[in-house]
């Protein structure tokens, strides 16, 4: 894993992204409400890095990933990819942008057309966007199959003839076909068993090095995200509650939800495991159709305060590169401002940690 160079370029800039799905009801099926799957989310992804998105089921991770690629018509907000605003772009002009941004899907079984051969699936984007002749196209298909470690002899087989890991490789080869710069990986390993997960993640890392890819890696597997991501965003009920460098987030989480999430990561050392204090959250996630007033997390937060039920905490940079939305820190930073000490956030030395992960 190479540390990205410091003056980094923002490849993806997302500002105030909202994705609300209307709820139709009543006799005339009028809009009676909205499911706020993604509600006012902002983040940037730097060129060549991997941004991990974590959160529990139904928190809007996948919707966020799809919305960033404009697989949905977003409700509000701005998405800039390499400086081009795509948030409001029509689908036909968006189509010409597709080669630069691709997606690897969660379910490798369902995301491949069952009636197309592997060669057909991988070649289709080339036919649509490329100018390659038939023979050169087949050569490119073989190249891609080599790149993801699929046997060339399998080119004429149908997806159902492959195992889950192989199908996910087909999905990755397909995504790579047009030399994209940015790939959204929507839980690419969730449907695979553990030994295959490692293969696919290592493949993704290798491809990132080889082709200089930028990933948005959506997962609920905290250990895997810690392995692959450079920075991590934590989502809860449609909002990002915390976004920071990986080590800062895993070592010293600032938001109570992140703390609870991190305390749930299993510890491989049994001696340490016995001493781990788990933070058990009570209750269920509220419905995204009817989120609580104030902070979204106030119904389950172990450190809830009176203000949390009234005011939605602002999402701010509390330490360099460390964004959090929580009232606890609002109080902290107010105190910091008074003592005029801006060195509260000591930059962490990440090099030792990275050696362990590799």
């Amino acid at each position, binding site marked *: 894993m190479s540390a990205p160079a410091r003056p980094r370029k923002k490849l993806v800039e997302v500002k105030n992204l909202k994705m609300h799905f209307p709820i139709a009801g009543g006799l005339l*099926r009028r809009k009676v409400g909205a499911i706020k799957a993604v509600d006012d989310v902002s983040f940037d992804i730097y060129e060549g890095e991997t941004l991990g998105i974590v959160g529990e089921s139904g928190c809007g991770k996948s919707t966020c990933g*799809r919305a960033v*690629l404009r*697989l949905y018509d977003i409700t509000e907000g701005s998405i800039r990819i390499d400086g081009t605003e795509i948030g409001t772009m029509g*689908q036909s002009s968006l*189509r*010409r*942008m*597709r*080669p630069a941004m*691709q*997606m690897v*899907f969660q*379910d490798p079984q*369902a*995301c*491949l*057309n*069952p*009636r197309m051969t592997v060669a057909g699936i991988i070649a*289709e*984007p080339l036919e*649509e*966007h490329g100018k390659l002749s038939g023979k050169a196209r087949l050569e490119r298909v073989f190249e891609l199959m080599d790149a993801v470690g699929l046997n060339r002899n399998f080119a004429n087989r*149908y997806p*159902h003839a492959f195992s889950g890991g192989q199908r996910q490789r087909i*999905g990755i080869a*397909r*995504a790579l076909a*047009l030399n994209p710069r940015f790939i959204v990986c929507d839980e690419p390993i969730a449907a695979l068993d553990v030994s295959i997960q490692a293969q696919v993640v290592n493949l993704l890392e290798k491809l990132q090095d080889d082709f200089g890819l930028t990933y948005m890696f959506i997962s609920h597997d905290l250990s895997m995200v810690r392995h692959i991501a450079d920075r991590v965003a934590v989502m809860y009920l449609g909002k990002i509650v915390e976004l920071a460098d990986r080590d800062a987030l895993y070592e010293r989480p600032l938001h109570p939800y992140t703390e609870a999430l991190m305390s749930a990561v299993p510890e491989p050392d049994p001696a340490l495991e016995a001493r781990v204090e788990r933070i058990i959250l009570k209750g269920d996630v509220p419905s995204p159709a009817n989120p609580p007033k104030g902070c979204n997390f106030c119904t389950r937060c172990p450190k809830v305060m009176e203000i949390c039920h009234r005011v939605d905490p602002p999402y701010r940079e509390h330490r360099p590169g460390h964004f959090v939305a929580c009232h606890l820190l609002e109080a902290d930073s107010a105190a910091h401002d008074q003592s005029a000490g801006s060195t509260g956030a000591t930059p962490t030395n990440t090099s030792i940690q990275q050696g362990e992960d590799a």
Partner: protein
Amino acid sequence: MLNYTLRRLAFAVPTVLVISLIVFLMLDMAPGDPTASLPLTIPPEVREQMRLALGLGDPVLVRYVKWLHMMVVVEPSHMIANATGWNIGVEGPRILSWQTRSPVGDIIVQRMPQTLWVVGLGYLFGILIAVPIGVISAYRQYSWFDQAGTFVSMVGFSVPTFFTGVVFILIFSVWLGWFPSMYDTTHQVRDWDSFVFQVRQIAMPVAVLALFNASQISRFMRASMLDNLNQDYVRTARAKGLREKTVVLVHVLRNSMIPVVTVIAIGIPTVFTGAIITEQIFRVNGLGDALIRAIYVSDWPMVQTITFIFAILIVLFNLIADVLYGILDPRIRYD
């Protein structure tokens, strides 16, 4: 696939034999008598002799075996001989219609073209209308087009053809005078004018049948499209940056056609069996008309033969539907 087809064909033989026995016995045991429609003044002895002359003296199983032999050997050989001009007709007695005393096979061959034209065109137009309606209805689910399509297909599906047929005759023949209400089988197409007349006389029965078929098939098409439109691979296709037209017509439509094609294949025997009611309304003397007339006068050989041919066609097209499924869907393997 070939092995599978051959195995299925081999299994179809006992099925068809059992069906033939049931058809034969059911008609044999049914009340009604071929001489019942004759004048009451005929004395009973003469009546009995007429029955013997019709071959009703033998035990039922003997008659069944004789009929089966004629059905599967003699009649097909004559049909092929007539069609090709080869001299391969098997000698021996043929299945004779009790009403006309002519071979049943010849009557069926005479009547087949009318049925195939009228009912076949009705089926074909039904499919041609149904597929685009189903596709658009699903793609624009709950739009006014979908609502209108749902309404029309509910009407087409729930109102029987004997009603729509009469309504059509009332509107287009009686009130507007656009089309003749009766189908003239003797009409021959020789020039442009006679062709126009043929189109006009075939229009209404075809329209009635097309409406009925289209309303069924369009529902299947819509449901199948809706199933596929929400699949993940459709999102993949969009993410590839394909044109919306390609996404819908190549990815979604091709996958949606799999169940629809099999439904269409299973429905094809009805084209041969004719639409009994529609043929009656428009006086098309096709197979359906022949069957209903034979039932009226207890012409058992005719009824048995036509019913048996239907049974064979249904078994055959079920097999064809299964094989088509295997060809269209690579996930299905029969071996």
